[in-house]
């Protein structure tokens, strides 16, 4: 998560704009030489460490406490399948060409980063995808000292960057310097690395510790889910970082790297497997990252992507949308019936993206709770789920589903109920229906709101909602924008109602501060005594899309964030969810408790398909490409030979909802 900007929005299939400038360009990895006398990246870092002695400490091995309980995740099961075979090329597609190969800074937070960082790079330790505990990555062992809120880590001396340099304690120091530097133009990172940690100490080249300001239950997560920054690579680091490093592939700790010649601008990027990868025989890393190469080409249109998959140019295709699963690749499709393409459904368990209607309570009318309740009752999500998603998805209960005991046990989203909706609208003064059936109040004002969204493929959902809301006398004006334009609009708090979602990461407990704290709604929302500040101004560029500002809720959030007691946090969390539910500024939409994928016969998955907390079929790289099977299948297709059809449902982790 450290590597994902928290504000990342789930944009389902961001529409490829017109801006399609294809063609190869000359390699831009060479930049103007740095003027002589400019300090190198590591010299700048040394100066920074010296200027911040509180934060950066250099100690000796003798300073490591002796009474620590070291953990190493050795009780956890392996992740890769022993049947996996190395080799082959995996063919993938992306909708947009990445705008940069940098890992931070402007434009770096795109979908492509999964391929070079999020799903590939090895971090200090990772959450096991079946079990919430950590398994080792760059660290071999770690220990938590609760009194000092410090996590000690022993680094794996085998760890190497993809260019052969060893990964040492210095790279973790450099990570802090780098992510706190203004040159990277990434305020979120600047803030995170300045406020979430209070100290990093080096005991020797392979022993470090991190200290956190608060002792919260998920402290290990904040300490361990880090990928260091390669100090040697950023020798030319400076104010022109953003341009200078735009197209340079950052050495990785993971199994795949990118060669300069494999960056074909506007067309494709190819990842190559490091055959000498330092972790290739480690318990939790072996039998994963199996394909020799991953060829990712640009296909701007999802319909075309599907056709490319159908002729075998792509190996896998996500079939989570009902129209793909039932209509475009039905079980009766010849390729499925002949056993060439396999269809798999996998039920997973993890926090779900928060799809729903986000009401901006700072807008006229929406500040009225009755109106918000009315909108809740006038949103027919059950119909959308039943008719449009064909009953495959479930109704979301609260925006914090999937956090096990942290999720609220009894709260449920309000059902579609025209009677109740009208009662609430009437209580807000909207009693008369106008000539078009839309409710009006005594002043003749219509009950009408703009419904903004950037999720273009889901536009049909909104048109269904609109038709249904009209029955309750509510008019929703749909505004379908380009994904980034829509997100900009809501970040500027210019929306009435927004349909969208925040991505949810595999965390132990939900976050509230970002979305519900008044700090993110207004500048100085409340006066000293807790009353509303009459001069408060809307705060833009935050994730409090509902402009929620409740004094009491603020107190709970602060208590929750400061708490180190799990039970207390659960109770506080539930109370906050209840308050949020009562406030009714969010209409929970749906959750998808599975993912579905179509894959050619030569793409093999482990027994049981994947792991419990996996988000997509490819995320953990446990699949492999069987080159012999590929040849066999292609030959069989030509000769008409068929195989047993494979349509598999893996519901071993299905949850009762």
């Amino acid at each position, binding site marked *: 998560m450290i590597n994902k900007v928290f504000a990342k929005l789930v944009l389902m299939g961001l529409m490829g704009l017109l801006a399609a400038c294809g063609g190869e360009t000359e390699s831009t990895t060479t930049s103007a030489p740095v003027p002589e006398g400019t300090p190198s990246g590591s010299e700048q870092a040394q100066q920074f460490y010296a200027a911040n002695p509180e934060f950066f400490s250099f100690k000796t091995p003798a300073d490591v406490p002796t009474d620590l309980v070291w953990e190493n995740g050795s009780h956890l099961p392996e992740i890769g399948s022993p049947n996996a075979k190395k080799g082959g090329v995996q063919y993938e597609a992306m909708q947009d060409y990445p705008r940069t190969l940098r890992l931070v800074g402007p434009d770096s937070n795109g979908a492509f980063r999964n391929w070079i960082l999020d799903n590939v790079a090895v971090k200090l330790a990772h959450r096991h995808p079946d079990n919430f505990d950590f398994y080792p990555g760059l660290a071999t062992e770690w220990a938590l000292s609760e009194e000092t809120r410090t996590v000690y880590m022993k680094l794996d001396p085998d760890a190497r960057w993809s260019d052969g340099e060893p990964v040492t304690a210095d790279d973790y120091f450099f990570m802090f310097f780098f992510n706190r530097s203004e040159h990277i133009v990434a305020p979120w990172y600047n803030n995170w690395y300045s406020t979430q940690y209070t100290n990093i100490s080096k005991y020797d080249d392979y022993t470090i510790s991190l200290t956190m300001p608060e002792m919260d239950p998920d402290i290990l997560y904040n300490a361990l889910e880090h990928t260091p920054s390669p100090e040697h690579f950023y020798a030319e680091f400076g104010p022109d970082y953003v341009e200078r490093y735009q197209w340079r592939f950052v050495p990785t700790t993971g199994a795949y790297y990118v060669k300069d010649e494999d960056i074909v601008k506007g067309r494709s990027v190819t990842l190559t497997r490091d055959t000498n990868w330092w972790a290739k025989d480690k318990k939790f890393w072996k039998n994963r990252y199996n394909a020799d190469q991953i060829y990712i080409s640009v296909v701007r249109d999802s*319909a075309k992507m599907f056709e490319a998959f159908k002729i075998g140019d792509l190996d896998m295709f996500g079939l989570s949308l009902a129209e793909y699963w039932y209509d475009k690749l039905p079980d009766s499709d010849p390729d499925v019936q002949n056993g060439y393409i396999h269809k798999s459904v996998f039920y997973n368990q993890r926090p779900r993206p928060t799809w729903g209607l986000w009401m901006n309570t700072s807008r006229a009318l929406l500040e009225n709770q009755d109106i918000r309740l009315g909108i809740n009752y006038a949103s027919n999500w059950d119909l959308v789920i039943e008719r449009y998603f064909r009953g495959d998805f479930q109704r979301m209960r609260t925006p914090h589903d999937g956090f096990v005991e942290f999720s609220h046990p009894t709260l449920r989203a309000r059902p579609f109920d025209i009677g109740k909706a*009208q009662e609430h609208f009437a209580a807000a003064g909207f009693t008369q229906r106008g000539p*078009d059936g839309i409710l009006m109040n005594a002043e003749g004002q219509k009950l009408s709101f703009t419904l903004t969204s950037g999720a273009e493929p889901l536009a049909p959902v909104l*048109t269904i909602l*609109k*038709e249904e809301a009209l029955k309750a006398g509510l008019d929703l004006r749909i505004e*379908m924008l380009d994904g980034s334009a829509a997100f900009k609009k809501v970040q500027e708090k210019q929306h009435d109602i927004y349909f969208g979602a925040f991505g949810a990461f595999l965390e132990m407990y939900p976050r509230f501060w970002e979305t519900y704290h008044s700090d993110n709604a207004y500048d100085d929302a409340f006066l000293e005594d807790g009353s509303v500040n009459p001069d408060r101004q809307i705060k833009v560029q935050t994730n409090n899309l509902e402009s929620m500002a409740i004094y009491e809720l603020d107190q709970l959030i602060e208590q929750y964030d400061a708490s180190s007691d799990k039970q207390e946090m659960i109770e506080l969390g539930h109370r906050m969810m209840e308050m949020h539910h009562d406030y009714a500024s969010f209409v929970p939409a749906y959750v998808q408790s599975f993912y579905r994928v179509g894959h050619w016969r030569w793409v093999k998955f482990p027994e049981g398909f994947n792991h419990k907390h996996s988000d997509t079929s490819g995320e953990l790289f446990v699949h492999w490409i069987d080159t012999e099977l590929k040849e066999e299948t292609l030959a069989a297709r030509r000769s008409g030979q068929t195989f047993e059809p494979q349509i598999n449902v893996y519901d071993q982790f299905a949850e009762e909802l």
Partner: protein
Amino acid sequence: MLFKLNPQTTKKLRRFREIKRGYYSFVILMTIIVVSLFGELLINNRALVVSYEGELYFPTYTDFRPGTDFGFDYSYETNYRDLKRRFEEEGQGNWVLLPLVPYSPNENHSVTGIYKADPPTAELQHYLGTDTTSRDILARLFYGTRIALFFSLGFLGAVYAIGISVGSAMGYIGGWFDLLFQRIIEIWSNIPFLYMVIIIFSVIPAAYAISTRIVILLVVMVLFSWTSMTYYMRTETYKQKARDYVAAARIIGASNTRIIFHHVLPNTLATMVTFMPFTIVSAITAVTALDFLGFGLPPPTPSLGELLKQGTENLRTAPWIVISAFTTLVVLLTLVTFIGEAVRESFDPKKFTVYK
């Protein structure tokens, strides 16, 4: 008509009638336009006539009628198809007369209980099938075409009004005014139209009603399309201005206004009329393209472009979508082009110039 028909014009019109292909295309298009004005009587989910407990209701053009008016227990708009079924079952002499196609372009009416594209059925009166959210394609096509047609007529009017005024002024006044406007137009017409529409439309608040947004789209398109007309008008006016009859009018003491409106403009009619159909074609194409790209009319407004887009996305699974949208577009554009050709031919001065 703006100008009094002179014998020459009558001659041209007669000539137009003689070009059969263009003339019949014109008749067909006019029929489509006239019929579409009364489209609510043909394709609509509101009944034409309801006879309920001895009283007659004509809900098509009136305010909405809640279900409670006809003995249903809901307060939203009556579902007249249900009403008809109920009346038939009750058999108490109440009756409902539904339009030919009893669906509105925005309502989801699923044949199977699932919202997906269904093939055409005469039985359920989805004569062209349904789109991906079970909306009637014929209804969407019909209203989409109507919007496109009237949109393009509005576009034509506005582009002509601006183009002719500016163009004539440039030609007639000439001098620095002409020079200045030429430069302005050169700069203006170099702004990429499609990008501008996309940019402008993405910042316009959606708080306006759909009809307002359509007007805004129209205004934006006109803003970037009036320039081409000015060139022709400028040249034409220049030409006419230099002619003797204008000089003669001026000597008699005719005012500039009189000269422009009574002498110059009528003589440029040929140019204006010739470009009309092509302007319409370009407007229909532009609005369809914008919708196709998702930057045109806001959903759920029915539109040809949106249907085309759905169609291409579901080429394999629902070919009836793309077939109907494509056919409509082709027919429409062909009709307009035929008319255009005929107009051009009949207004071509060469036809009447005889050298002896």
